[in-house]
């Protein structure tokens, strides 16, 4: 299951995580985000939590975090390592391609 990240838990669950964290920035009104939703869920189910955590952040309800990281287009996925942005993946894509992009970041 993909995690749910918010402005409130971002620091503890993402920035202070021991393993890399992928955050999928999305919104209800964004059709390509909704296409990516099930793909992100699937990927989250396949990647070992000890190697990488995956979760979603609703930009509408959590604008502080979205603004802080300059998210200006969704879907955007940010990969966080030790509290820093290690990669930025913009746009929707098939599952295989997403897996390929995440592979180098697995702990």
């Amino acid at each position, binding site marked *: 299951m993909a995690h749910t990240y918010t402005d409130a838990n971002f620091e503890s669950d993402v920035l202070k995580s021991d393993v890399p964290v992928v955050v999928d920035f999305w*919104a209800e*009104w*964004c*059709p*390509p*985000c909704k*296409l990516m939703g099930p793909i992100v869920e699937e990927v989250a189910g396949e990647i070992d939590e000890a190697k990488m955590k995956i979760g979603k952040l609703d*930009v*509408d309800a959590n604008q502080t975090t*979205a603004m802080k990281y*300059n*998210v*200006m*287009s*969704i879907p*955007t996925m940010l990969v966080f390592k030790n509290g820093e942005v290690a990669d*930025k993946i*913009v*746009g929707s894509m*098939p599952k295989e391609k997403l897996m390929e992009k995440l592979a180098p970041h697995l702990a």
Partner: protein
Amino acid sequence: MRSVAIIGSGPAGWTAAIYAARASLNPILFEGSEPGGQLMTTTEVENFPGFIHGIQGPELMQVLREQAKRFGTEIVSAMVESLKQVEGGFELVSNGQTYRAQTVILSTGATAKRLGLESEKRLYGRGVSACATCDGFFFKGKNVIVVGGGDSAMEESSFLTRFAEKVYLVHRRDSFRASKIMQDRVKANPKIEIIWNSEVTDILGEEKVTAAVLKNIVTGETREMPIDGVFAAIGHAPNISLVQGLVDLDEKGYVVTLPGSTRTNVPGLFACGDVQDAKYRQAITAAGTGCMAALDAERFLSGH
């Protein structure tokens, strides 16, 4: 071997599926990489007959999909990677699986063109956007440029004024080709400023877009304009990678169909919607040709 395979899931594809399914042809439809097609990134569709108060683009596509499903269309939520002619029909490969069909209805549509600038690629997702519906939200109180002169440029400009402080509509000619009602709406909107005879030749910024370089085509003058976002709505190109080398294309790359039909030069291969229409490109004309393709395929099959 199946009788009908439909490639693409815009208004053309779903309408073809509805007709083919109702004719008991048991169609299989491949949704492709952008299910629902271009209407998925629009908001209100006001000119599709049957909806007095308009309908949201994604909702319309959902309804068409359900309707096609109700009559037994088999739906594959994947792209077709290859298409070739074989004895008695066609062979399609999707997600590693092979499918065979006597007829193929090609409804792969068209994709929005980009400006084609190096900086546009670099700043994509950093102020450069391909989807006003998705990204308008991030430009609250900011200034943005929309490039283009057709209906989609008008729609995006109007939509973006919900968020942006100011929308500059940049067009390379001195008049729009958009429909009058859309033009009037744009011209009456105090938040939209039209910049005629100009094009965006570069987009500037390190981490995010900070300015655009505008060139006046008449005077040749260039100037830098501070800006936060750039949206391109400069037309579409047909999605033909699957049929290149298989079927006749016109000089613009659109699939050629016989006048008054959806037949291509390849027997059993029919094309409908934007992939074969450089002229009208409306949801309703796509649906109309989708219907024609299903009827043409049905006639073709009964002759075999």
